[in-house]
């Protein structure tokens, strides 16, 4: 009997060695360790055995059973691994094939730029105030300290409407007085985004329509130093923490003192490039302390209140940031342009 057991053991192990896939392995299991397998058949014979050898045979039978089970488990694991590896190997993809394209949408690049501006100034307490595109000469010029025939009016070629003294606003500064009138006597901290219009030749650099964002802060103790600090913060958040600003004296009828703000060129890190015309500086915005006449026209006593104002062009900012060389792209709305942003 013991001999028979040892033969079974040796042969089963040898067969197991030959098994090459899990299906054959299951057959082997069924024949060897299954409910009606060879080992079971031997087990059934234990009861009829000579009691003298029965314990030794029983012990050996258990050993064989456990060994075969362990051998089976090991073989099964090895075969599964091999089969998985084979399956993986045969199902490899060319991962460089393009993905399935999604029909996606997007915000206009000017909206994206405006949102950046809203967010940065919003953090500093500036809220958005909007005013009409079609404006009176009074709000666009006179109340902003542009007298009739003043040379400064020539800096902006207006579109006139058939209604006397009604024009398309040439700048969002036109909303300054409206904002002051709306907020008086509270302090004012607003940005005024909007579309502006000038009767200019349409070229790669100028358009008859463009957006602007004006800013206005009015309070009891607002200084030129605050103007510089606020706009420098803006520049760093908009164009990178390493930016430096430079303020140059300038002229706007509605501010005094007036300043242009330049930032260090972020394209060449001020080493000099075509965009900054090898000056290392990029002109970003105009600004200044609100002219006393303008404060008065907005209802604020210039003896008590001071304020600053600034204005910038989102298209110019986007052009600098993304190297856009033709301003006509913005309103041309070619999807091949818009979907790049």
């Amino acid at each position, binding site marked *: 009997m013991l001999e028979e057991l040892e033969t079974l053991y040796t042969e089963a192990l040898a067969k197991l060695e030959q098994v090459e896939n899990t299906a054959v392995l299951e057959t082997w299991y069924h024949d060897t360790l299954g409910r009606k397998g060879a080992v079971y058949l031997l087990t059934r014979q234990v009861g009829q055995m000579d009691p003298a050898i029965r314990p030794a045979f029983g012990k050996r039978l258990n050993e064989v059973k456990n060994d075969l089970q362990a051998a089976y488990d090991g073989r099964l694991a090895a075969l599964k691994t091999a089969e998985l590896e084979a399956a993986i190997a045969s199902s490899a993809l060319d991962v460089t094939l393009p993905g399935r*394209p999604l029909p996606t949408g997007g915000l206009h690049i000017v909206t994206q730029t405006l949102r950046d501006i809203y967010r940065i100034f919003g953090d500093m307490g500036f809220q958005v105030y909007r005013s009409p595109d079609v404006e009176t000469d009074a709000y666009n010029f006179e109340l902003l300290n542009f007298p009739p025939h003043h040379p400064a009016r020539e800096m902006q070629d207006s579109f006139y409407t058939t209604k006397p003294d009604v024009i398309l606003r040439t700048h969002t500064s036109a909303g300054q007085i409206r904002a002051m009138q709306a907020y008086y006597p509270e302090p004012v901290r607003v940005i005024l985004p909007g579309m502006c219009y000038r009767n200019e030749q349409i070229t790669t650099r100028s358009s008859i329509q463009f957006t602007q964002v004006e800013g206005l802060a009015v309070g009891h103790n607002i200084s030129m130093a605050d103007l510089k600090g606020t706009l420098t913060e803006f520049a760093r958040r908009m164009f990178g923490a390493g930016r430096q600003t430079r303020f140059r004296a300038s002229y706007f009828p509605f501010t005094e003192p007036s300043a242009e703000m330049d930032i260090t060129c972020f394209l060449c890190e001020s080493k000099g490039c075509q965009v900054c015309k090898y000056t290392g500086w990029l002109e970003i915005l105009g600004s200044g302390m609100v002219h006393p006449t303008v404060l008065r026209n907005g209802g604020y006593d210039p003896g008590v209140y001071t304020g600053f104002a600034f204005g910038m062009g989102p298209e110019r900012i986007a052009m600098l940031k993304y190297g856009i060389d033709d301003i006509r792209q913005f*309103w041309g709305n070619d*999807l091949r342009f818009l979907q790049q942003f």
Partner: protein
Amino acid sequence: MQVPLSWLKDFVTIDRPVAEVDRILTNAGLEVKTIEYIGIPGADLVWDRDLIVLGHILQVEQHPNADKLVLATVDYGADAPEVVVTGAPNLFEFVGQGDISSRGLYSPLALEGAELYDGHKDGRVKMKLKGRPLRGIHNRCMVCSEKELGISDEHEGIILMVKDQWLPDYQAGTPMQDVLGDAVLEIDIIPNIARCASMLGVAREYAALTNQPLRLPDYHVVMDGPPVEGKVVITTDKPELNPRFVGMVIHNVRQIDSPYWMQYRLRLAGQRPINVVVDISNYVMLEMGQPNHTFDYDFLRQRADQYAPDGPIHIHTRLPQPGEMLTTLDEKVHKLPPHAILVTDPLSNLSLGGIMGGLDSEIKPETQNVLLEAAAWNFINIRRTANALGIHSDAAFRFSRGVHPSQALLGAKRAAELMRRLAGGTVAQGIVDYYPNPPQAATVKLAYDYARRLSGLDLSGEAMADLLRRLEFAVTVHEDHLLATVPDHRLDIEGPHDLVEEICRVYGYDNIPNTILSDPLPPQRGNPKLEQEERIKDVLVQAGLQELITFRLTSPMYEAKLLPGSEGDAWPYVALTNPNSAERAVMRHSLLASVLEIAAHNSRYQERIAIFEIGPIFIEDEEEILPTEQTRLSLALTGQRGVPGWQGNNAGQYDFFDLKGILETLFGELHVPVNYEAAQHPSYRPGRTARLLLNGQQIGVMGELHPLVTERLDLHIERDQPVLAADIDLDALIPHIPPYYQYAPISPYPPIEEDLAVVVDVGITAVTVEEIIRRAGGPLLKDVRLFDVYEGEQIGKGKRSLAYHLTFQATDKTLNDKAVAKQRQRIIATLAQRLNARIRE
């Protein structure tokens, strides 16, 4: 304005590098746009300091072997002079005159090895000077033309300078860099620095900014001619337009070429030299900012003989008579606007005051006696007149920005003295100065507290006073304020804020600290309407649409394309009087038209167009001054739903229900209950048009565009390809967006799902069926979803089957089939009763 640095150095010491000068001026508001370097480092051709030097011409002799060459003996500071072979025609007159060293003739001398531009080649080609024999005489040096040095394209003769008391004491051998080397700054003159539209004006700023003294020009004039009294009378009847008129008479001027240094400076400043009289007039204008004009004195005298044979020439300034014409010296005939101020005599007009001289009265080549005019004019009036006539002269440029009347006398004296010295003239004794109301110098009070509050600078009163004094303000310091008297070259100082700007400028904007606003924060209200607009954009972008921003100017004709069978809508337009083009002549009425214009453009390149815009439309309001601006949302879809990839694009074409799905998603996100109702609209295809109703109010229209409209829009699309569009009034929608809403709890109990196919008459709308199902289903019916619509023989003609997927669920228990069956029976019964519907099994 072109500003040669050397000219500035007449008035102020400049010992800083050019880049530093640029920075100082630019930061103070005199923006240097470009810098052109001549001969000095920075230039394309740098004149070698050892090899290109000043030469003194001692003698000129004929070349023994060539008629067209001469031999010039030139001292250039070396032990022995150099003999140069040259063909310069402007040396021929000196041949055979022997020693001419006492005439002080100088020319740039290039020595062997010097790099120059080749005078015989077109453009600027560099070459190195090599010694070689010229017709038998060895030549190793060259006297240079302007072209060879890169000053201009002039190569007719060599540069020939005559040393006079005006030229600094250069010696033979001085490097030419120090004589003619220069940097020319192009400065942008913005309206409030009109005072800097001259060399002196720029120098004055530079002196103030660098805290150095300013050297004024010499305004002394030697007047030793016959007295002018009784010979010229000046009057005006418009002193507010012509506050001052200074006249001087210079006799026996010679209209020769002006000296080289003056020509050189004029050229660097962008003026073409003409002759000494004209050049002096321009020179004085450029130098100190006072434009002036020269009349032919004898011409005026001959006219006076007609109107006052024994009396003086009578110069009178006045406005034109109706229809009066004037021919300016550029031979253009002008019809004068009523506000044009004229210089006249009793016979007729002579010149256009402050803008341009008249043709008849200007000096002619033979003129020997001149009447010099230096006047002051109202700048706004000059601006209006110059613009009306389209004349943009240098005089008009300056006068239209403001020149203080005090400058007129100085300018006249300066020009007269130059004519005496350089044109050999004799200045008549006496100056005719018509100046009825000299203005008081303005004194401005500046409170220190205000200055500190505005600037953010904590300066003492004395420190502020010092900064202002650098700009020539006369300042007295008091306890809490200072009084500053404005210098007479400035017209731009009106109030204390102007003084603060001057203090900040001279102190340096860069030196002002950067601080964060410490003033109280105003109440924060946000901008709810904008926030909702931005939210709508986000939803539409998530739905796969691209936002546009289009032109708000359009033409009524284009917009009428959306309304077949009519000339356009009934509303009045905001129309431009000066449109840039006929296509952009009115403010739009239709945002959808703008969006479709872009759809048409993109249809040439895109298979899929899914676009929208949020923006205003403009309806003229005859009652109000300004038009009504309404905020609209317009969408357009056409073409392929999907994007083609290598696995194919089988998603099909956009149709009505794509657009509707997008709108349903939008209104769902916004939590506004919008209903759709079949409607008619001329832009849309009948039977595929819906109006959008919010609480019974129409807020917009959607649908498939009418085939007649798509045809007119120049869309490059397939035949019968639908174009879907919607136009929504956001002013009507946004106020209904709830600030918050209730969430629907998620039940932990399992749902029971069933399908129900309802057969109804074709005329019964889907929304009617669904509403009845929802009502009858009660609170246990959680969701109703239409999954199939069928019309066909199986259910009979005139019938339609709508199949719904129903979800029943309770929030507090597990539903059993019995409870669901009861609800289902109620639904079926109600549909049968209300719509005569039957259930399709």
